[in-house]
């Protein structure tokens, strides 16, 4: 499994649709301060079911919709799709790619889809946890958080291991 494609539209600074086609291996993202690099990671977590506003760095759900910047109109919905390569069938879905999509409307409602079929949020969380692609796992280090793991208290570290076993 690896992330094959990311599509973002109407989410944070991505007022217009952007598409990233990825490969397995080592991928690097760079750009000026405030250009939208960390927002891409927020978009990935968002599509995989992340619900904490603190993690997504927003004061409310509406704050995830593109605010129009200086030029455009505010987006009325945010849509993020993450397509995984699944030729190894590690994700228990019978297709070569599995696409997780989340749509957020102005009323704060989220719609989740897997391979374009409506599913519940719980279904997304179960599936991502099963294949360790859930944001909860220790594989995501958000900006400024790198020292947190070294600073965990011993009991917190035990609980982290316990939760993964």
């Amino acid at each position, binding site marked *: 499994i690896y992330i094959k494609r990311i599509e973002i539209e109407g989410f944070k600074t991505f007022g217009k649709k952007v598409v990233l086609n990825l490969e397995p*291996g080592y*991928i690097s993202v760079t750009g000026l301060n405030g250009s939208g690099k960390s927002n891409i990671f927020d978009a990935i977590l968002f599509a995989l079911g992340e619900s904490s506003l603190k993690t997504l760095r927003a004061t409310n759900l509406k704050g995830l919709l593109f605010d129009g910047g200086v*030029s455009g109109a505010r987006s009325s919905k945010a849509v993020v799709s993450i397509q995984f390569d699944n030729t190894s069938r590690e994700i228990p879905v019978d297709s070569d790619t599995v696409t997780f999509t989340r749509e957020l409307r102005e009323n704060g409602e989220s719609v989740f889809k897997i391979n374009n079929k409506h599913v519940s949020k719980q279904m997304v969380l179960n599936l991502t946890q099963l294949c360790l692609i859930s944001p909860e796992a220790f594989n995501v280090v958000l900006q400024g958080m790198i020292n947190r*793991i070294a*600073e965990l208290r*011993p009991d917190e570290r035990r609980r982290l*291991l316990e939760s993964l076993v």
Partner: protein
Amino acid sequence: KRNVFMEAFEKIDRNLRAIFKELTDGDAWLEVEKPDDIFQGGIYLMVRFPGKKPKESLMLSGGEKTITTVAFILAMQSAFKSPFYLLDEIDAHLDAINLERLINILYDRSKESQIILITLKDVTLSKADKIFGVYQREGYANVVEYTPGIKVKEAQQ
């Protein structure tokens, strides 16, 4: 439950020792606080950097903590294999020597799991199989793909 836990613990501990040695020539290991009652105590992450006494990971410098955290994350990989890693400017507080070593080990690991690194440093960009540049134009964020080998300054518009 205890057995399953200890099996994972041993695997991670073994891996941590090997990875940390490769990264720093020092030693790192996990210690159980209460061996007789594991779930009532914690787990210490002990670290000894070359030329220093062993210490708990809490007492390290900023750069030393970064190295220790990455070693621990990669060690966990042995017990809980994750298909991808998202690492956002983890290289910000590293000196040139630690940066080079860190990027080399991440490059090796990227053969098993996809690693996506946000960076403002050339060394981190230099090993990439694929590079994306994010830039702001008329109030919208855009993404462009670069061929590997480009420098950060050229990619920052």
